[in-house]
């Protein structure tokens, strides 16, 4: 469904590394202007490869991709002018001060000196580095470096900002502050943000739409709510002295409750319903009326975690499976991308 306000159009994009390693395997999607678009998947799923192709760092082996209406293969220099990248690694020059790094970036984007100066002031303030702007970057903490990286990517006010795993390996505090920056950016400008992550809560809290990518293929693309809905309902777990077929029969007979699934799991009854808010009181009433003592109740709203499990058949943090394939991708990409993983 091509739409007029798409700023990224990807059609059947493919990247096969030597040795038939399919890092990106016929991927198609569109990103609309002004949205925060999430690319969610485990390590080695093809996120960074996709971002590298869209950023003109790598050539696809098949399909096509347009960024801001320009072809990433044949019109790379036009693409470069309109995009900003905050890579996974810390790429600031450690021997330069924070401010010098931002000024260097301004020169790379041909911003006139007076304007660059003003912009540096603004960005340093935005990421809270005004006080340490004249210190060399190697004296910065990991979080400060990441914030500087973020500011550097914004120097030329890009139309699309690419964030590759912006919070990977950061402590909770810094992660939260990076999220804050992204939200602020989102509300104050019409910048489109393309973010890759393998943190579910990050994708959930930030993104307007999320593509789940696994083994180089997009397996789902929807709003966070849409993805959760697809999981199919809330799960109510009721702990009782003993769960058996009689209890399940009793639950099935409760009026006004649409039961999607009901089963015993140890001494707990697992009840899956489309929506738990209305069903919960009715179910508890059912237990009380039959004099079954309820020891504990837990309601599990569908999460992206479950959505991911549903779509891929494995958990996101379950990174052991496919280790061999990942090693293949890593070997094929070695030295080609953003270099050393820190």
């Amino acid at each position: 469904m091509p739409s007029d306000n798409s700023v990224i159009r990807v059609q059947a994009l493919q990247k096969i590394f030597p040795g038939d390693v399919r890092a990106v395997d016929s991927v198609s999607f569109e990103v609309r202007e002004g949205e925060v678009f999430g690319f969610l998947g485990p390590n080695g799923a093809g996120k960074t490869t996709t971002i590298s192709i869209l950023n003109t760092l790598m050539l696809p082996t098949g399909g096509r991709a347009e960024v801001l209406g320009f072809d990433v293969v044949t019109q790379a220099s036009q693409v470069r002018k309109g995009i900003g990248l905050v890579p996974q690694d810390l790429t600031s020059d450690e021997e330069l001060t924070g401010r010098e790094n931002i000024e260097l970036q301004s020169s790379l984007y041909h911003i006139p000196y007076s304007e660059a100066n003003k912009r540096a002031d603004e960005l340093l303030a935005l990421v809270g580095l005004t006080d340490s702007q004249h210190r060399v970057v190697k004296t910065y903490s990991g979080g400060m470096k990441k914030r500087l990286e973020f500011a550097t990517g914004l120097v030329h006010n890009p139309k699309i900002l690419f964030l590759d795993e912006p919070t990977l390996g950061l402590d909770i505090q810094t992660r939260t502050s990076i999220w804050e920056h992204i939200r602020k950016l989102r509300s104050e400008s019409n910048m489109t943000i393309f973010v890759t992550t393998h943190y579910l809560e990050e994708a959930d809290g930030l993104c307007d739409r999320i593509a789940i990518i696994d083994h180089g293929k997009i397996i789902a693309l929807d709003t966070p709510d849409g993805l959760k809905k697809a999981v199919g309902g809330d799960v109510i777990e009721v702990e009782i002295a003993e769960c058996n077929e009689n209890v399940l029969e009793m639950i099935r007979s409760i009026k006004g409750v649409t039961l999607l699934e009901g089963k015993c799991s140890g001494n707990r009854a697992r009840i899956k319903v489309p929506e738990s808010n209305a069903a919960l009181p009715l179910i508890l009433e059912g237990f009380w009326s039959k004099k079954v003592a309820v020891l504990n109740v837990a309601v599990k709203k569908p999460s992206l975690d479950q959505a991911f499990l549903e779509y891929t058949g494995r958990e996101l943090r379950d990174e052991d499976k496919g280790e061999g394939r990942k090693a293949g991708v890593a070997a094929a990409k070695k030295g080609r991308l953003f270099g050393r993983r820190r």
Partner: protein
Amino acid sequence: MLGETYALVVRDLRRWYRTPGQIILVFTTPLMWLLLFGQAFNIGKLAQGAPGIDIREVFGGATDYFSFMAVGQTTFIILFGSLFSGVSLIWDRKTGFLAKLQVAPISRASIPVSRMLSTVVKALLQAVVVLVLAAAFVFIPGLSGLRFSPDFGILEALGIALFLMLLGLSLAALFVALGLIVRNEETLFGMINLLNFPLMFTSSALIPIALMPEWLKTVAGYNPITFVVDGMRQLVFHTSIGAQYSVGVDFLGIAVFAALMISLGAVLSRKALLRS
């Protein structure tokens, strides 16, 4: 092209002078060579007083070995600086800095060109330090010093700078390109070591050609460093006594070498920076 090249040269120079101890190294390394090598190997003494020998024929116009080698020492500085010019690019690739440059809407050429220019600027500054230190030895009792011809002037100084710049640019062009191609330092260090000593010791930088065996004389005659030192000595001592070629031929020699190496470097760098 100009804006980003300038910015990247400034970045390289800042990295250089901010490295702790860099300033000390700039002075001490040439000082060691001048003191230990230049003063110890005073081979001119051997020929002193021998009848019918003009020592200047052997020392390229210099009246003593120290003056001879001090001029040669500047090419040594340029050689080392430019051979190592590509190493930092390997680091820039590893840290992701290079990828950041490749994402930016800059001329691809600015990446190798800026590195070549910063290399030459650093090396030229060090060469000036060598010449000034060597000349200052004149005032230290017991040491021989570099004796410039009284006719040495600004034109000669510019000529020397031009010779050294061309030598630096040609080697840096190749080694910056290698730094973009090679992915690990060890391989590059191997290549540097392979070229380092042969280039140095088959030239007339430290050893007079007159003292070399015939086969080495032939090799030295085509060594680009020989063109540079031969031309520079004629400018410093203001005489063509003991010269291999005329200054014009020396200049032509290094200019042709530079043109070849820069073309080769451009082709290799371009290829290395192409997307795959």
